[in-house]
C-alpha cells in the first residue's frame, strides 16, 4: 500500500477540510481510480474518528475554578478581617495561587460561610442595620454571581428595559436610577435571594468593576428620609466593599471590588437619585 506522492498529503484530511476550490473533487476522482490511495484514505478516516471518540478530553479540575476566582479577587482591604487562619492542607494550593491573594480570598470564603446562615432576617431591625449585618450575604452573592458569570438576568443598559423586567417577579417595583451620566452605566438587573426573600439587584459598571446594588423596600417607613439621604455606611470584607443606606422608602446595599471611596460616591448618588425620583416623581 503506497499512496501516490502527489495525493499523499491530502489523504489525512476530511473532504470538508480541503479548502482550496476544486481540490475535493479532483481528489475524489483520483480515489475512484487508485485503490492504494483509497485504502489509505479510509485508514485516516478511521484514525480521525477514533481520535475524536477516544482521545482523552481532560476536564478542568474542580479546584481550578476556585483558584482562578481567588486570584482574580482583589487584595484584602485594610478593614478586612484577615485573622481567619487558612485550613491546614491547603498550603500547596496557596503557594500555587500566589500567597496572600489566595489566602485572603480563602479567608474571605471562610468568613462569608461562617457568617451566612446564623444571621436571620429580622424585620424589626432598622433597615440600614439589617443591611450592614448581612454584608457577608450580599458580598457572597455578588462574588457568586461574578464567578458563575450569572451577573444579570436582564441584560440591558436601559432602565426602561430593566425596570419593567422586574414587574411580576417581585412584590415591589424597584427604582432603577440611570447613573451613566455620573460614570456608572447600567449593565442590567437580576433577581437574587437574600435572607428568605427575593431582592432586585441592579448591576452597574465602573471601568472594569462590577457593582451590585440590592434594592428593596425599607422594612419600616424611613423616618425623615427627605433631604440628604444618610450617606450610607461603608464596610469592607477582603477586597469587596459594601455601602448601605435608605432613601425614599427603599433600602439599598451596593457591593463591589471598586475603590471604597468611589463606591461610597455611587451610594451617595444612588440615594440622591432615589430621592429625586420620589420627590420629583413626574420625571419618571
Amino acid at each position: 500500500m503506497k499512496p501516490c506522492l502527489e495525493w499523499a498529503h491530502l489523504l489525512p484530511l476530511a473532504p470538508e477540510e480541503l479548502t482550496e476550490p476544486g481540490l475535493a473533487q479532483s481528489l475524489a476522482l483520483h480515489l475512484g481510480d487508485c485503490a492504494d490511495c483509497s485504502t489509505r484514505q479510509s485508514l485516516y478516516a478511521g484514525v480521525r474518528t477514533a481520535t475524536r471518540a477516544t482521545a482523552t478530553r481532560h476536564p478542568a479540575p474542580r479546584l481550578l475554578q476556585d483558584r482562578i476566582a481567588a486570584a482574580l479577587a482583589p487584595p484584602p482591604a485594610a478593614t478586612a478581617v484577615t485573622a481567619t487562619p487558612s485550613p491546614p492542607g491547603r498550603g500547596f494550593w496557596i503557594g500555587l495561587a500566589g500567597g496572600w491573594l489566595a489566602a485572603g480570598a480563602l479567608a474571605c470564603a471562610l468568613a462569608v460561610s461562617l457568617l451566612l446562615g446564623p444571621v436571620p432576617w429580622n424585620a424589626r431591625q432598622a433597615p440600614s442595620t439589617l443591611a450592614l449585618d448581612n454584608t457577608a450575604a450580599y458580598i457572597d452573592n455578588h462574588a457568586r454571581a461574578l464567578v458563575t458569570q450569572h451577573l444579570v438576568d436582564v441584560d440591558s443598559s436601559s432602565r426602561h428595559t430593566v425596570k419593567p423586567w422586574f414587574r411580576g417577579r417581585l412584590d415591589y417595583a424597584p427604582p432603577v436610577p440611570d447613573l451613566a451620566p455620573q460614570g456608572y452605566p447600567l449593565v442590567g438587573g437580576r433577581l437574587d435571594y437574600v435572607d428568605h426573600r427575593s431582592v432586585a439587584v441592579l448591576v452597574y459598571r465602573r471601568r472594569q468593576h462590577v457593582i451590585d446594588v440590592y434594592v428593596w423596600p425599607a422594612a419600616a417607613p424611613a423616618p425623615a428620609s427627605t433631604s440628604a439621604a444618610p450617606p450610607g455606611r461603608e464596610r469592607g470584607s477582603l477586597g469587596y466593599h459594601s455601602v448601605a443606606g435608605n432613601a425614599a422608602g427603599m433600602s439599598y446595599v451596593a457591593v463591589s471590588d471598586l475603590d471604597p471611596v468611589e463606591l461610597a460616591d455611587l451610594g451617595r448618588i444612588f440615594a440622591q437619585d432615589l430621592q429625586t425620583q420620589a420627590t420629583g416623581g413626574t420625571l419618571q
Partner: protein
Amino acid sequence: MPHLDAAYNLARWLTRNDSDAQDVVQDAYLRAFRAFDGLRGDVMRPWLLAIVRNTSLSCLARRNHGGRDVAYDEALHGDPDADGEGRAHPLDPETLAMRAQDRRRLDAAICRLPVPFREVLILRELQECSYEEIVQILDIPAGTVMSRLSRARARLLALLAAE
C-alpha cells in the same frame, strides 16, 4: 468560569502535565480578565484559547530553558520523512483501527507528537474548532492549518503503526 474545560484540556495536552496546565490556565485567565471585561460568548473562545496556547508555549520554553523556538522550528521543518508518508506501513487496517481505539495507546501517541502538530490536532479533533478559529488561535494562514493538520495525522498514524 467560561470555557474552562476547553482551556484546561488544551493546556493539559500542550504541557503534558496537570500542574503546569493549571498554572497556565490560571495565568491565561488572569491575563484575559485584565485585558477584557468578561469572557462570555463563543467569540471569546478562540481569543481565550490563543492566550492559553501562548502561555503554554511560554511554560514549555521555561521548562526547556529557552529551547522552545528551536524545537518548534525543528518539528516543522525537520526530516520530512518523520511524517511517515515516505514509508509504507506494513500494518493492516484492522490492527491500526484497534490501536487507535485504545485510549491509553492513542493518548500516548498524541503526546509524542511535536507541539506544532499536537496543538493543531487537539484543536481540531478534541476542541472541534473550525479552520477559522484555528487560524485565530495559532495565528497562521488557513492553508498552513490544512497542511499542518495533514502532517499531524500522518505522524499520528505513523506513531500508531510503528509501535
